[in-house]
């Protein structure tokens, strides 16, 4: 019921959702991150830490299944070269009850932002720069900390 994939091929959203729907759940929640081109970004390169990345995503998915009653969890992250409009990340959760699917989906994308070893480099025309981590991401992840 946990599926984790790190791949340089485009993310096949319809295939991922169909697999979650087949878990027999009443509800499927998804979040898809898309490369934006509105601030002049012409290309995006995603670096990751092979070996550690997959472990980190599996640990995240397992943490979600401990916390919520889920029938399926899918985390797909693209790596390598991407263009505006491409999907970077897909999170999908299937559950009997919508609240569980929705909360787990929000949890997974918040935690993925701080707990998985990926680094983005944006290219604008001739200039490339590494994306800076945002304090707001740490705050969003912290929101899910257990008391």
């Amino acid at each position, binding site marked *: 019921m946990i599926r984790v994939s790190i791949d340089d091929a485009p993310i096949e959203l319809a295939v991922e959702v169909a697999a979650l729907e087949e878990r027999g759940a009443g509800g499927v929640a998804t979040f898809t991150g898309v490369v934006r081109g509105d601030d002049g970004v012409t290309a995006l390169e995603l670096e990751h*830490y092979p*070996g550690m990345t997959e472990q980190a995503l599996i640990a995240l998915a397992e943490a979600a299944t401990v916390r919520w009653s889920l029938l399926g969890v899918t985390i797909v992250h693209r790596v390598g070269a991407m263009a505006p409009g491409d999907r970077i990340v897909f999170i999908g959760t299937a559950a009997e009850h919508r609240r569980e699917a929705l909360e787990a989906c929000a949890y997974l994308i918040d935690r993925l*932002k701080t707990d998985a*070893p*990926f*680094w983005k480099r944006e290219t604008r025309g001739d200039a490339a720069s*590494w994306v800076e*981590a945002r304090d707001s991401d740490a705050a969003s992840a912290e929101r899910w900390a257990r008391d």
Partner: protein
Amino acid sequence: MDLLYFAWVRERIGTGAEQRDPPEAVRNVADLIEWLATLSPGHAEAMREPERLRAAIDQKFVPLDTLLGSAREVAIFPPVTGG
């Protein structure tokens, strides 16, 4: 010890992986960063601001004051920006 570097740390050092044997005095990750900075101008540039660096020991994120112990693989990198 296997050392891995990612993102601009990798770029500044000029390689993503190397083997090094730090001296006895290097006890934790912060010590390692300080020592690595002495190895080359590229290392010095990469390690210049330790507060902007993060680390993993044997593929687990750790704070910089974590003891290296019997670490086989140590990775040094900027804060992550996936998703």
